[in-house]
Structures are given as C-alpha cells and as structure tokens.
C-alpha cells in the first residue's frame, strides 16, 4: 500500500527541505547582484520555519511501518537544533559575504541545511538503515564544509582528517550493525529490542562497542575523539561552531534513543559500564587536553569533548529526568558555545587572530565582546546564575536519580572535573580582563547579524536558566515517552 499521507508526520523535515529548496533556487536562479542578500534571505526563511515549528503542535506518531517516529521529544529536539542552526547561520552571514567565500556562499547554506536534515533523520529514525543514511547525510557534507576556506591549508587538512575518520567510523558502525542484524534479524529498533532481550553474548558486546564507537565519533567521546581538535581548529569558525553544537546535540539525542530503545535490555549488564568508562575518560581527558591549549578554537574543541561527557550523564541515567536534562543541557550548550564562537568568529574575521594570547586586554578595546565571551565561559563552566549552572545541576540530579552508588561516584568525578574546566575557562577570562598586552586587538565593529546572534546567545545564557518554563516544556515532552525507560528499570 502506498500511503503517502505518512509524509505528513514529518512536517519538520519537509519544511526544512522546503527552506533548502528556496535557498537552492535563490542561489541558482537569482541574479548575481542580489546574491549578497542570499544569506539574510536564508536566515529569514530559517527563522520563519523555526517559528512555525515552535507554533504548531508536535506531530506524534510512527510512519513507514515504524521506520520513522515523531514524538514530543524529537519535536522539541529538532526545534532546539533549528534554533541553534539559525544562530549559526546568523553569525555566518558576514563571513559568507566576505571576498574569498562569497562565491561558495550558496553551498554553505545548502550544505548546512542538508546536514541538518540528516540530523533530523537520525533523531527520528527507528530503523538502522534510515539512521545510517541520516548519519552519513549529517557527517559527509561537513567534510566539504570543513574544506570551505580554500585559501588555508589547515582547512583542507581538517577536511581530510574528518572524512577519513568519518568513513572509518562508519565502517566500524556498520560492522556493529551487521552483528546486531545477525542476532536479531531485523533493522527496526523495536523488533531488535524484543529479539535482544536476555542476550548478553560476546557478539552483542562487540556490536555494542562498535555502535558506541560509531556514534561516539560524532559526539567525540574519548577515545573516539582525536579528530575533533584538529578539525575544529582547521575548519572555518562557522563550521566549527556548527560541528560543535548542532551535530553533537543531534548525535547525543539519537545515541540515547539507540541505547535505550534498542539495547535497553542490556543496560545494567553491558553498556552502563561501557558508558561509565567512556564518560570518565571523556570528561577527564577532554579537560586535561584543554588545559594547555592556546588556540581558542582548539581549546573549545577540547572543552566540547568534556562537555560531551557531561551530556552522556543524561544518557547513563536512563530516566526521564536524565533525558530531559540532557536535552536541556544541549540547549544551554548551544547558546553558551555559540556565544563563544560568535565572538571568536567576529574577531577572527576582522583580525585573523584566534589564540588566547591575542585576547589579552580585549576588555579594554572591545568590552562587549569580552563580556559576551565571559558569559559564555561562565556558562560553560557552570557558574550561576547563567544557564550552564542549571543544566549542569539538572544533569547531575538526573544522573543521580538513577540511584546507584557508582553513579554518585561518577558525578563526583564529573564535579571534580568541573574545577579543572573552570580553570581553563577562567584562563580565557583572565586573558581578556586581567592581562595587558602591547598589541591588543583593536576595537572591532561587528556586523549587525553577528551582533544579533551574540545578543540572542547572551540573552539565552542569562535567561534560559532563570525561566523555569523552558525546562518544564522539555520535561513535559519527555514525560510523554516515559514508558521507554520504564522497561529498563
């Protein structure tokens, strides 16, 4: 039976494709002189689409025989990603209009939207084939985006590193899935879950390890993270910010869905401990690497690795509180990190300077940029009253809700690590506020789009935590699928 009405269950995906098509048409058919308004056009389209998604009620249901599922949490997650992408695009407007990039600016927006589409598929996929396609759609074009700054050698190196690691990891991931398929005979999450109940074989463990490695690559969990820093550093800042927040958020969500929905039965036996070890490693190593970084993009790469470890706490919790805290964490992380990247991008675009030492005395010349950066750092470090504090607290509470002593120990490790992380976040603040330098970055006039983006981020960083209804909104959405966790515990 061909029931095309099932497509109506995916309004967000279709809406996104529509935006993509409009952008594509604009890029392809509009005259050259209007091309420079293309970025703004994209942003406006994206904004309209985002607002629309927020306004209309969540589509709930399964389509294509359970291959695709839309429910309240996926809806919320996609909305959050939309907001994030909107911010990224906003901050990229000026950059894409710059001399060296402007010829390819259409492609930037198209690829961004298409990868977002891939992420949507990842989030909603309840079938491994669809998931793999989503994963590839979300990761392959990023290699092209990484190579966007053709002038710079680093950009190419980043792209090469990314694509090789990505293909390798997808091969590992596919191997894992092939094992799963061999054991269950299906690719539908639900059927696999049923078939795997009581299965603790070596093969399952191997498969799980490979699946975790495959998705862990996207999330840059240790030890699958080594590409991260190089790629973040080499890519254009807009791409880095996109990679660090959007891609990570989507992967985290789908990771949770896979682990809980597919392998839920093996939680306490198998993957709780795998994830446990990975979280400890991720948070600790990420922090240790970050401590010594001078290049801010590279620095944020390591910081994002350790942040991913915190996000994983929401998964290991396997409960509603953990999941909603995780989504909330991603939301807050998007705002905080994008605020930081916004500043970096604005400064890099005009002066080309990205190391921490370049930021010495920034406060004197660019107080607002420094202020934004500081808020971002505080939020990332989990300092109240900024949103990062709330998200960290909630994710710890969510994790501890799981109840075992081991998780308390894990949270303690995470907490001790927050001190290290605070140290390096404060290093940035120190550079901007405490240090003096002879060649301070001159006063910069940032473009209104950049400024809007940063202001939005700052507002988000300040108010997301204080306004409790945002968390309540997420929590309400996750509550709707609370049954998913009930099976585990």
């Amino acid at each position, binding site marked *: 039976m061909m029931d095309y009405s099932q497509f109506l269950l995916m309004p967000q995906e279709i809406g996104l494709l529509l935006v993509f098509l409009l952008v594509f048409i604009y890029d392809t058919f509009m005259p050259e002189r209007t091309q420079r308004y293309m970025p703004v056009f994209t942003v406006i389209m994206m904004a309209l689409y985002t607002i629309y998604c927020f306004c209309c009620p969540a589509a709930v249901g399964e389509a294509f025989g359970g291959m695709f599922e839309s429910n309240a949490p996926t809806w919320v997650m996609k909305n959050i990603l939309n907001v994030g992408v909107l911010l990224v695009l906003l901050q990229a407007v000026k950059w894409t209009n710059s001399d060296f990039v402007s010829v390819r600016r259409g492609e930037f927006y198209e690829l961004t939207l298409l990868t977002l589409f891939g992420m949507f598929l990842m989030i909603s996929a309840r079938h491994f084939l669809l998931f793999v396609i989503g994963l590839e759609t979300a990761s392959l074009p990023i290699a092209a985006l990484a190579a966007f700054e053709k002038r710079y050698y680093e950009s190419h190196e980043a792209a090469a590193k990314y694509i090789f690691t990505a293909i390798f990891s997808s091969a590992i991931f596919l191997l894992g899935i092939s094992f799963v398929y061999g054991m269950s005979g299906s690719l539908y999450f639900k059927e696999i879950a049923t078939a795997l109940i009581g299965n603790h074989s070596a093969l399952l463990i191997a498969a799980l390890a490979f699946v975790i490695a495959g998705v862990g690559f996207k999330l840059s969990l240790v030890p699958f993270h080594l590409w991260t820093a190089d790629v973040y550093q080499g890519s254009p800042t807009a791409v880095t910010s996109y990679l660090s927040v959007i891609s990570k958020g989507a992967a985290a969500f789908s990771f949770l869905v896979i682990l809980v929905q597919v392998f839920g039965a093996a939680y306490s036996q198998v993957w709780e401990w795998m994830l446990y070890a990975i979280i400890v490693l991720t948070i600790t190593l990420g922090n240790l690497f970050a401590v010594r970084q001078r290049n801010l993009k590279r620095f944020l790469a390591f910081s994002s690795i350790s942040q991913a470890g915190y996000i994983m706490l929401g998964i290991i919790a396997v409960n509603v509180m953990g999941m909603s805290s995780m989504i909330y964490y991603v939301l807050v992380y998007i705002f905080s990190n994008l605020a930081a990247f916004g500043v970096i991008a604005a400064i890099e675009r005009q002066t080309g300077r990205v190391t921490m030492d370049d930021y010495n005395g920034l406060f004197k010349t660019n107080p607002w940029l420094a202020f934004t950066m500081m808020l971002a750092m505080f939020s990332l470090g989990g300092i109240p009253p900024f949103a990062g504090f709330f998200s960290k607290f909630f994710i710890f*509470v969510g994790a501890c*809700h799981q109840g075992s002593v081991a998780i308390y120990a894990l949270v*303690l490790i995470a*907490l001790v690590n927050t001190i290290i992380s*605070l140290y390096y976040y*404060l290093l940035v603040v120190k550079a901007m*506020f*405490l240090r003096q330098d002879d060649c301070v970055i001159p006063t910069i006039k940032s473009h209104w789009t950049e400024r809007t983006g940063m202001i939005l981020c700052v507002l988000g960083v300040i108010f997301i935590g204080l306004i*409790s209804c945002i968390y309540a909104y997420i929590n309400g959405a996750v509550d709707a699928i609370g049954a998913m966790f009930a099976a585990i515990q």
Partner: protein
Amino acid sequence: MELFNNILIYFVIVPLLTLGGLALCSNRGIKAIRTVAVVGACALMVLAVWLVSIFLQARGAGDTSEMILRSDVMWYAPFNVHLALGVDGVSVVMILLSAFIVFAGVFASWKMNPLPKQFFMWFFLLSTGVFGFFISIDLFTMFMFYEVALIPMYLLIGVWGSGNKNYSAMKLTLMLMGGSAFLMLGLIGIYFHSAPEGQPLTMNILDIAHNDAIPHSWQYVLFPLTFVGFGVLGAMFPFHTWSPDGHASAPTAVSMLHAGVLMKLGGYGCFRIAIYLMPFAANELAWIFLLLTGFSIVYGALSACVQTDLKYINAYSSVSHCGMVLFAILMFNTTAMTGAVLQMLSHGLMTALFFALIGMIYGRTHTRDIRDMGGMMHIMPYLGVGYVIAGLASLGLPFLSGFAAEMTIFFGSFQHTDTFHRVLTIMATTSIVVTAVYILRVVAKLLFGEVQDEHHRTLTDASWEERLSTATLILAVAAIGCFPNFFINIISSSFDPVVKALQAALPL
C-alpha cells in the same frame, strides 16, 4: 505576586536594581556611580534594620515558628525546586552584618580606580549572592546564590587586586569551587533522600529536617561532603590556603566583603545544612572536624605570629577565628552555637574593619610589609586608632565584639562533660594569648615606634568617606561588644530545632 509582599525578596532585588542602575552609568561619571552605589547600600541597610525590627516584633508577639516571613513559589517543578524564603534569628543577624559591610565596603572603595562602574557591579552581584543565600531555605537556591557570591571574586581580585593577583584569584576561585563541587554532590544526595519512600522529594530545608529521612549510611557520606564543602569557604584547616593569598591580593572592599560576609556563608551553611539535616552523622563524625577546627584555631594564630604582610596576618587570624566558628558549631549546644554566630558577626565586622584600614594604609604607603612601616600613629592617627580598636576587638577585649563571642563559645564548649571536648576547649582558649601576641606585634611595629620611611611623613590621614566607612564598623563592633544580650536574644532561640534534632539523633 505574593512573593513581592515579602520584604526578604527585596534583599535580592535591591542589589540587582543597583546593578542595573550602575550598568546605565557611564564609566566616567564617577559621581553618578557613587550615588547609585551609596543609594543601594543605604537601601540595604534600611531594609536590614527594618527586618530586625520585624523579627523582634514577630518574636515579641509570640511567633515561635522556626522561620518567619515564609514565602514559597514553585520554580522548577520537576525537581521540586522552590523559591522558598524564610529567616530565623541567625539569618537575620547575618543579613544585618552583610548590610553593614556592604555599606562600609562602598565607602571603602570610594576612589576605586580603574573601572569603578564594573567594580561596583561585581560588588553588588556578590552581595546579591550573599543576601540570597541568607534568605533562602531551599537547597537549590541556596547553592545557586552561594556560587553567585563566589565567582565575582575572581574578577574582583584579578582586575582590581594587587600583588600576585592572577595566581591568588585563580587559586581562591578554584579552591572554593572545589569545595562547592563536593557540596553540590552532597546536596544532590540529600535531595534524593529527603523524604521517606513514596513521598515526593523536596529541597526545602525545613521539610527535609522535618522528614528526617536520610538513612544513616548515607549521612556518613553526605555529612562530610557538605561540611567540607562549606568548610572550605569557612577556611577550615587544611583547606584554608586560599585565604592568605586571596586576601593579600584582593582590593580593600573585596577583602572586607569576602572575609566579612562570604566566609560566614561557610559557617552558616555548615550548621544550616550539614548539621541540621544530618544530625546523626553530625554526632558521629563531629570529633574529626572538632580536631581539625580546634587545631586550626591555634594553628592559624601561631602562623599569624610570623607573617610580615599585614593582610597575611589578618588572613591567618581569620583562619583562627573562623576555625573558632566551626569549632563552636560542632559543640552542638545552644550556648556554643550562639557563640559561633556572635563570632561570625564579630569576625565579620572586625575583619572588615581590619581590611578596610589595611587597604587605606596600603593606599598611602604602597607597602603592606610591617617591617617597612612604623610610627603610623603619628602620621595617620585616625587610621591608627581604628587599627588599634580592630586589633583589640580581635584579641577579645571586653566591650568589643570579640570578647562576647569568644567567651560564649568557650563557656558553651566547656559545658560538655567529657574530657575530649574539654581538652579541645582549653586548647582553643589558649588562642587568646597567641592572638594578643600577633596583634600587639603588628600594632607595635606598624603604629608605634619610629617612622621607618621619611616619605611616610607626608601622608595624610583618612578622608571623610574612609572615616565614615570605618566608623560604621567600629560602632557595630562596639555595639555587639556592649550589648551582646540583644543579639543573643535574637540568635539563641534559632538553635532550638537544631539542638533538638541533634539530641534526638543521639544513640540512646
């Protein structure tokens, strides 16, 4: 909104409004900045005095509830986090203390340069955290305000500090945040055991204490976590090392606020959260912390004897005095705990006074090394007299605050019948001699004797705002010293629930 009918919320709103007002000022309009800051500080002072009178009226009218001025607004329903407000005697006097020190601090940083606007903004953010902490009775909001109060320290020291400020600021922030990391875990643990099986979990301190549901095995873990967490801020040995460096580098008003109020958060939290909520473990484990704090009283005092930097001396003296606060809290009887709060008040005011004076002296001589100074009494008699008064308060002279506090602590502690507590008490009392030694040593070197540096002869005495700032504090110190019973009456009944809980938790 029901919340806004409660006077307590204005202790948070007023500093925030001041913060906003300062944000609107231009960095060049120093007059406007000062005006806004002074208005904010005065408003806080008025509010605090008003609060005391409300409290006295309520108690006078026979309101014996544990907390008065309760308000409760749901904030984060999934975690049962409320914006729960309420004060008892201890919080009231703490708020009063904070208001005093904020007031004095504003005047002490009158000529702050550079970036006065930013300085005052951070300053008021810090005070927001402090006041918020004292008015909250919800674990989450308390913790949030606690950290809000901590982080401005980094910039306040880092930007406006002196000496090895980068190192000190980082060390202070990291160590305090390290403490709060333990604390956070402790609070989460408390939250998950806050109610008996089947009842909704709560973050409200009073409810948790009322439920008394934390299993004993968990108390053994959570009590040390929370106690150490707060203890770090309370300069508990061996987690006190941030204090000498931090204070040495901090600008005057920040040292004042930090030593005067922020370190009190530690003691306050220890008693309000660690001991009150986990009386069983408190009884069982108190001896460890008694040893530590008892040791740190003498240890801090002895260390202070050899320092040559004025601020280091004061910082170590704070270690000693704050050790006494925790020591007294751990004695678990009303008298000693009342003494602890008195000591918090006393130490807060007199250390603030000390730091204010040191800052003013340093601002003139540009050195804090007592070996380089001498005969300051000739040159700046007002500051000299102030310093002597602060010193006398510190060494526990009657009719100044330190005496009443220390005596209450000693006599309260001595009410224990067992040798362990008594020996510790005697050990603690020896500090009064050592304190005298280092205080008089400084006074002799710094104020008396010959003028060491001829350039110092041209220095001027305190300006009017400096006089106002120090006079406020001196008056407060004398007020506590002369009328201790006024404060004791406010404070002591607040300890009844705690002491009752502790006794109920004692194994029969």
